[in-house]
């Protein structure tokens, strides 16, 4: 209850013009980045990361929260207007939004998307505020052995969630774990893989990994896609001018969708968010499928049914609240954005975990207040005030945009340590991530392997030391056994059962 009061009290921080400026600026940057195909809110956050060194940590976390929320809804702009989702989370929105755009109801589709995002985002944030303290209390029951199994569970689930690409995902995770072992050993003073370099003795910094993986590799990918950008610009020329009042969905339309659809989709999104590696696109997909399944007129979906937009958008925004649960309570990020938020905490010397909600409540509460503020106020307000212009923002000159991003990324990697070595390391990570992406490797698993690697090793060694080297301890300790069983269940459902079903159906056809 104390934590809820603290979150409510944190809204007063938004009265500070500096804080409000960063929250609104973060939201606008997040919306613009997620609206432009090829750019993501993750990239926006990666560019913001170096600035957190100079920024007050509370303000930085509040700005991160607003970027996160904006990143989930901004993608619906191009998904609706030109059928190209600005962000993966808006994939399902394109299915209904674009047909509506074709019959001249594009602004209405965007209005429904914005309203559903507001509902889903607020619902997810409220659930997070209410439930996180209880989950944090429960997480205190997890001891050293259980912590190893929990981190292993998170990494394995992230890998098996990459269906059809599991081997590549596993290799990327192992590459991340390899990078995490560079530097002095945490328990015994032995240098590992430093090749005599003093700069590597402290290990590879998180900043070059994040900026390299998300900013540099994106620049290298985008520079090869000039024609695609020209195509998008051509398509946007045909989009008719949108009036502000067209964005407001009528009450009858909202009633037709029904409160149950918003509530169910938001709940699906929140639960999906708590799973490692799932993200907004899976949340939106599952909620959309559920909306089609339970509809009396399933044939109307895919032809411009606002209910599909409402389901997908409320779910993908509710994911934000869900995804912050494992990050705040266990220190396990489920997606790249929460991994970067974790990076902001680590950079400022804050270790996420069960005690975080109590010991650092004054930092976490404002972040959650900002998440709620972004969902409840900034989503509808931004869409109403700036909606007509956002469609034009997508046509911004790519050379100017990417040159700015390149400068921010490279100089940003210098900011943390004033070291040219870190800039070089950023470039190395960027080139590695670029080639990994080019060959179909999911780089998010590399990042999560890198972030979770040190804890995975530490808990493995501690657990085996406590059990005198007996590996059965992972099956005899109840907390560990719980996560081992959970891992087996997820592996069965994600990696074994589904392919078998597919095989059977393909044989029968």
């Amino acid at each position, binding site marked *: 209850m104390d934590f809820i009061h603290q979150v409510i009290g944190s809204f007063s921080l938004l009265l500070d013009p500096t804080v409000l400026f960063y929250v609104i600026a973060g939201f606008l940057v997040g919306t613009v980045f997620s609206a432009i195909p090829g750019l993501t809110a993750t990239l926006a956050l990666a560019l913001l990361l170096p*600035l957190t*060194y*100079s*920024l007050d940590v509370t303000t930085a976390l509040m700005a991160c929260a607003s970027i996160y929320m904006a990143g989930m809804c901004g993608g619906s702009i191009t998904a609706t207007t030109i059928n190209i989702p600005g962000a993966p989370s808006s994939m399902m929105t394109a299915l209904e939004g674009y047909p509506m755009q074709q019959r001249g109801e594009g602004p209405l589709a965007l209005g429904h998307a914005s309203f559903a995002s507001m509902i889903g985002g607020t619902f997810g944030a409220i659930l997070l505020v209410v439930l996180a303290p209880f989950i944090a209390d429960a997480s205190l029951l997890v001891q050293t052995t259980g912590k190893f199994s929990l981190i292993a569970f998170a990494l394995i689930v992230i890998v098996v969630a990459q269906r*059809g*690409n599991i*081997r*590549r995902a*596993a*290799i990327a995770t*192992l*590459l991340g*774990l*390899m990078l995490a*072992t560079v530097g002095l050993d945490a*328990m015994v003073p*032995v240098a*590992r*893989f430093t090749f005599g370099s003093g700069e590597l003795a402290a290990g590879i910094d998180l900043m070059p990994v994040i900026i390299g993986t998300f900013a*540099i590799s994106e*620049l*290298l*990918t*985008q*520079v*090869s896609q*000039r024609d695609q950008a020209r195509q998008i610009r051509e398509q946007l020329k045909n989009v008719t001018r949108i009036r502000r009042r067209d964005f407001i969905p009528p009450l009858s339309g909202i009633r037709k969708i029904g409160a149950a659809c918003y509530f169910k989709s938001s709940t699906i999104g929140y639960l999906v968010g708590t799973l490692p590696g799932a993200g907004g696109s899976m949340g939106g997909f599952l909620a959309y499928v559920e909306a089609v399944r339970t509809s009396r007129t399933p044939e109307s979906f895919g032809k411009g049914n606002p209910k599909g937009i409402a389901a997908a958008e409320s779910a993908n925004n509710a994911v934000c609240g869900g995804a912050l649960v494992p990050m705040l309570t266990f220190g396990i990020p489920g997606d790249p954005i929460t991994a970067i938020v974790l990076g902001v905490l680590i950079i400022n010397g804050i270790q996420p975990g069960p005690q975080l909600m109590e010991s650092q409540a004054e930092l976490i509460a404002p972040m959650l207040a900002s998440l709620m503020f972004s969902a409840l106020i900034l989503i509808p307000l931004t869409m109403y005030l700036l909606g007509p212009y956002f469609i034009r923002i997508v046509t911004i*000159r*790519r*050379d*100017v945009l*990417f*040159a*700015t991003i*390149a*400068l*921010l990324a*490279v*100089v940003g990697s*210098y*900011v943390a340590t*004033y070291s*040219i070595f870190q*800039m*070089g390391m950023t*470039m190395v990570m*960027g*080139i590695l991530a*670029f*080639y990994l992406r080019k*060959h*179909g490797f999911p780089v998010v698993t590399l990042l999560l392997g890198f972030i979770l690697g040190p804890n*995975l*090793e530490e808990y*493995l*060694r501690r657990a*085996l*030391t406590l059990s*005198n*080297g007996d590996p059965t301890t992972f099956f005899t300790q109840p907390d560990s056994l719980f996560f081992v069983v959970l891992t087996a269940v997820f592996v069965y459902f994600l990696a074994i059962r589904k392919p078998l079903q597919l095989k059977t159906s393909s044989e029968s056809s």
Partner: protein
Amino acid sequence: MSRSAARAPAKAQFTSAAAGFYLVLLLLSVAYLVGSLRLGPPMIDGRLAPSFFPLLIGIAATALCLAQWLAEIRRPRGQADETGESTLAAAGDSSEAGPVRRMVRSPAIRLMVATCLYIAAFSVLGYWLSSALYVLTVMVLFAGRERLLSKAVIALVITAIGYLMFSELFNVRLPLLWE
């Protein structure tokens, strides 16, 4: 499709770009594994030593990279893999240019070179000169050499905004040519 490509469905793909990349990953994994072995025994007095975890990762990575490389080289020519990438596309067989020329022409490679040069020149030339040149290069790589003067002016403006943001707003001490 060329006659030779159509005739060789069972031919191993040693030369595709993907096979080359997987081979690099395999070599990296093997080097890491060898490095782990050189860290010492995995257990000392019944306790896990600093080499234990790297050894586990090294073995797993080597096995998986080997499997990935073998799967790639055994893949029939022209057949798409599980990510939908065809060996023909991966190898860039459709282009008539040689691999070196293709590499030099690649905008991504040019951007990599430009960024590496920028990093090398950053502390030598200072923020202003190196950044303005870098921003201009990136703009040219993204939009071609047309209207170069206007691009140069925009590059200067971006560099100045970057300076104001980092140096004035966030108090970052950026290197200057003459300090």
